[in-house]
């Protein structure tokens, strides 16, 4: 009787451990919950950012950052095609402080960009995403998981970025 009980208990414990192990598979990080503002002055919680199950690119930039402007200008030329082909959405997060944050929308409009703009005036989102240097770009899959990130911009690296988006759409794994 006793033995059966012990065996039964061990079995229960074993099953639980297996259950636990199943969930130890690598979990991809999700977007943190930080309050930033959009161009309409509304507070947006970054954990709720989504693109209806399609991939999303989050790019940290600032008006004083030359390579950031270069990257976003380069992508702006092909953004319509990218969207049509892959459904990808770009969220351009400006880390400009109160000195320049009111210039962000006029400048982005003046450049003809059609990205969704977010203002991270005191770098709260930047810190939560562990961004050191900008430009810093994140690729988020349809489930809201961060699957890839890259810092700096060089001519042609936008081609790598869209290739990764295509891979995501095909359901292939992305390794950094």
């Amino acid at each position: 009787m006793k033995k059966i009980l012990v065996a039964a208990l061990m079995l229960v414990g074993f099953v639980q451990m297996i259950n636990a192990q199943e969930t130890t598979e690598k979990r991809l990080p999700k977007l943190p919950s930080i309050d930033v503002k959009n161009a309409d002055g509304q507070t947006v919680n970054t954990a709720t950012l989504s693109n209806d199950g399609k991939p999303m690119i989050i790019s940290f930039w600032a008006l004083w950052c030359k390579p950031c402007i270069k990257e976003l200008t380069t992508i702006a030329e092909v953004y319509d095609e990218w969207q049509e082909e892959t459904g990808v959405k770009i969220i351009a997060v400006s880390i400009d402080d109160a000195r320049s944050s009111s210039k962000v929308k006029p400048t982005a409009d003046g450049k003809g960009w059609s990205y969704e703009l977010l203002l991270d005036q005191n770098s709260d989102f930047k810190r939560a995403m562990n961004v050191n240097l900008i430009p810093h770009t994140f690729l988020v899959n349809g489930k809201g998981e961060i699957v890839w990130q890259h810092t700096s911009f060089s001519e042609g690296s936008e081609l790598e970025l869209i290739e990764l988006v295509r891979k995501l759409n095909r359901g292939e794994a992305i390794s950094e």
Partner: protein
Amino acid sequence: MKKTIILLLTLTSIFAYLPVRAQELIQGGTVSGNFQIDGQYYNEDKALGITADTMAGKRYGVNAFGNLLYTNGKFTAGLRFETYLPPMTGYSTSLEGSNIANWFADYKTDFIQLTVGNFYEQFGSGMILRSYEEWSLGYDNSLKGIRVKLNPFKGVALKGLVGYQRSYWTPYEDGNRGIVRGADAEFYINEMIPSLSESRTKVILGGSFVSKYEKMTTKRLVRGDSIYEYKLPRNIASFAGRLNVIRGGWNFMSEYAYKMNNPSAANNFIYKEGQALYSTLSWSTKGIGVMLGAKRVDNMSYKSRMNETESILDINFLPPLAKQHQYSFATMYPFSTQPNGEMAYQAQIDFKIPKGNLGGKYGTQVSVNYSQVNNIKKEQIEEGIPVDSTGTLGYSSPFFSFGDELYYSDFSLFITRKFSKSTKANVGYVYQQYNKDVLTGHNGEYPNVLASIFIADITVRLNDKNALRLENQWLFTKQDKGNWVGGTLEYTFAPKWFMSVADEYNYGNDDSDQQLHYYAISAGYTDGPTRIAVNYGRQREGLLCVGGVCRFVPAANGITITITSSF
């Protein structure tokens, strides 16, 4: 027997269950973080005045940090480690040390957010409270204490906090700095009143209150044979109110801040109240954007230590109204905020000339900016008492009038055009007037610097991965160090490699021994979020400014290595 069985049963259950719970707790969360290591090795360079003597054995400097973040659902904890052994040249020697600099724990739901430990916060545009961190300046005025944020109703955001500010590594002790307390409320009217939610006009109102408590009570001043003992206020309050109206492409923002009398080292211990007003108006639609801004600052230095003269322990942030430039010659004469008084305005227009005769095959991008900063008018309060005299009300100043002294002006025009699939260029012209005396804290030693800067930056894409960039800059001025010419040639192999050679030549220096070449060779490798860059060469002396706060960068010669990564 039964007891043994029950005991065994209980124990087994616990032991089987515990690791599962513990694992869940760890599994449910994610750990992330980032690192940066900046290291410099210095050479002697007689032309720059750097000898073994001036270096005093300091051949290298290392600034480094690591952040660790643990997130599990609504809970986040973080820890920041910093090392300055010793700090790189140009950073405050008070940074020397290696330890956990900051830590925090945070719990956030849709309704409430609670933070204990070090935190960064900004009320409105920051004119009465902003704590932030800027690695390139070695600046961190984070608050250590408690913060609560509440969202009781849709469209209403309330914040309250209490803490003391970071001052390098100095532990908080009785009286070595003040305590900062504050509250802020913001109302998004359209979200609060359902009938307005569809309105095209969006209105946001906000108000904040900050108070500083400091123990110091008197200030002793010797003037001639007399000794004066001034009674100082322990509590210094400040208030701010803001309004933001948005309709279609229009956006109007205005914030007014008021600070009670705050005698301090920064204002020569006058008992005058402080005021600031910052407004911007912008309009934009796809293809064109215009921004106008105006600002007045009057006696708004607000630090949590009234004797402080260094740029640390600032409670507030006064946004400077001048363009933040991207090219190195245009940042040679940077503007820094003058908290004791400035009147400024700025206008900027960005537009795109569409494809066609004028715009070319791909369209042309134009950006024009003008900003000007003057002093404020300061009038004597009483005959015989000079302006800014310690222990007096200081001066009176008409709110809307500009003073006669120019601090800074900056005109810039940039044109970006793509000529073919592979070639694009950015050309620019900048004209600056720089009041070197005021902006570098001197008195009657230097003339104003008038500088014209030309920039030509051409990028050629050789194929999908290889690109060359040639950047040329010219700076013409009769003052300061005279004319400069600079060039950079950069080669990138996307997305991982870059290398560049650069030289800035001060051929116009009046002192022929100082007609120097500031050469540099750099190379770097980027893999995802990891970047390693090496630079060898000379570093030009100058001011590095971010957000109107500046750090003096001394001349140097040597190797710099930067390693940065995040995970």
